[in-house]
Structures are given as C-alpha cells and as structure tokens.
C-alpha cells in the first residue's frame, strides 16, 4: 500500500549511510521482506525503478528482495505453523490464541557500493 513511501524512506536512509562511508555509487540493495509484511514486491520494484532514475546515487541500481517465511506460534499447543496457509487458527489444535513469530519484517540487509 505504501511502496513509494517506503522506497523514499530507504533511499533517504541509504543516502546518509553513503555519505558516512564515502560511497559514490550504490549498485545493489538487498532487502529482507516478511511474507505478511504490508509491502508487495512487484509494486516495490516499480517504485524503486522510478525513484532510482531520479537520484544519481541509485541510478541503474538493482533491488534484490529476499522473502522471509511467516511463522505463527500457537499458545494452545505450543507448536508453530505456516501463517499464510492457515492464518489465525492453529492447524494442530484449532486454537485461536496464536501470534506471529516472524514474517512482518522489512529490513535493509546489505548494499553493494563503490
């Protein structure tokens, strides 16, 4: 939903990182995106392309997105299960007392620079 907004956030942040590390060009940016974060990868890629063309530091840079699987923990039976497939209800015991263990991450992992 807010892919353009987060693209600007990432680029603003990396511009600071670049200034601190005497980086003149960013070639590749690797992100970690949880399966159930609110960001949709294809939209993010098009926003990235659009915004990168307007900022010299990011011109022609490549965006790599690594997906992190979403895992939910069940308080009822203390087992975990894949969130996307089963949602809120535990497939092992049917309990609704569950919470997300991982899968809503949105991290900048690393950048390749010169």
């Amino acid at each position, binding site marked *: 939903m807010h892919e353009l907004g987060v693209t600007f956030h990432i680029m603003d942040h990396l511009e600071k990182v670049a200034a601190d590390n005497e980086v003149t060009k960013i070639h590749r940016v690797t992100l970690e995106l949880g399966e159930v974060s609110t960001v949709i990868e294809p939209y993010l890629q098009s926003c990235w392309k659009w915004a990168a063309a307007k900022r010299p530091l990011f011109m022609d840079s490549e965006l790599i997105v690594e997906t992190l699987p979403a895992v939910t923990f069940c308080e009822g039976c203390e087992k975990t299960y894949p969130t996307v497939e089963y949602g809120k209800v535990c497939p092992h015991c049917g309990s609704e007392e569950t919470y997300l263990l991982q899968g809503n991450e*949105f991290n900048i992992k690393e950048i390749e620079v010169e």
Partner: protein
Amino acid sequence: MESESGCEMGDIRVLEIKESVFADNDKRAEELRAELKEKGVFLLNLMSSPGSGKTTTLLRTIEALKDEFKIGVMEADIDSDVDARVIAESGVKSIQLHTGGMCHLDAEMTRQGVEGLEVGDVELAILENVGNLVCPAEFDTGASKNAMILSVPEGHDKPLKYPLMFQICDVVLINKIDVLPYFDFDMELVEQYVHKRNPDARVIPICAKTGEGIDVWAQWLRNEIANWRG
C-alpha cells in the same frame, strides 16, 4: 562478485546494514515524543479511513475541551486545505500539512507540523492523519496516544481486516451510532474483535453529529492527559 575480483570493478564492496526500514522513523518518533513531553505538549494522533467523520469528531472534541486546554490541530492531507479551514473557523490554531502524495505521516513530517504550530502555547496538539487504515499504522508519528475512528457503515469486521491499526490504538471511537438501526453492525462483536487485537484498547461509541458519547471521549482524553503529565 567472484568473476569481477581483481578487475577494474575491484572497488565494489558490500556494506551490511541489517536494520529495519522503520528503524530510522522509530528513532525520530521517540526523540519527538521525548521533546514534546519536555515542552508539555500532549500529541494525539487521530486515524481512520476516509469519510468516517474525523473532522466532525474533531470539532466536537474542540468544543468540549477548548476552555481547559490550548488546542492546536494539524490536518494532514495529500492535497487541499478544506479540513484546516473548517477547523480554523472553530477558533483554534490549525495548520495544513501536505504529504505530497504520501499515504501517511512520518515522525519527521509531524515534527515540521509541530514546529509550524509554534507549540509554545499549545497543550493539546491533535494530528489528523491521512485517511487510511494501513500506512499510518506502520509509521510512528511520535504521538503520546493513538486514537482511531471506525464508523458504523464501515462494518464491525474492520479490526480483523486491519489488525495492525487496531493493535497500535489506545482508543477506538465507534462513530455514527445514530445509524445503527440501518446497518448490520454488531457492537459486542466489534469490541471482541478490537480486544483480540489489543486487550488494553478502550472502545467508545459516539455520534459526532448529535454529540452523543462525546462527554465520555472528552473524559478519556482528560484522564490520559492528566496521567501523562504525572
């Protein structure tokens, strides 16, 4: 990069960042929260979907509290100053923030808004966030408390569809209760759904149009401001 090692591209290096995209905003939000605390400005972040009655609720809130607190309002919109003008007519200080197409306000934009309000003489600053249930939930504005409005025509299943929004809110106002007879809106169920996401959230039914429930909401705000002041 093994194929390129030793050639003219040898200067390429990898910097590990390992940081959440939201980390920078979270840090700025914490800083702003601390600064406002020091200045004695209680910042309320008001969120909802478009058309839920944010501006009307705000006018009622101002009416109820303007003799007790010096109020300032920041209206965030993608464009236009329609809301800011309406608020200005109520006699409180009001400024319009344009997000320039962005779907939410972040801590930095909020800071600019607060500076625009010249907080020196404001005790209660209210931020009317962009009408949207997704993005504003992810960007901490630095507010002391988060409130959201869910109006009856939107349906009681919204807490299931927008879990994060309900998780981060301290209070949920159920607005437009005057039209309850015409909608299949289950008040008990909505409370259950909200509390499933956030057991501490207070749910207050109101009607901004008639003023019903506004006294309960105003009292909640009074208490929160008093607790926050310590």
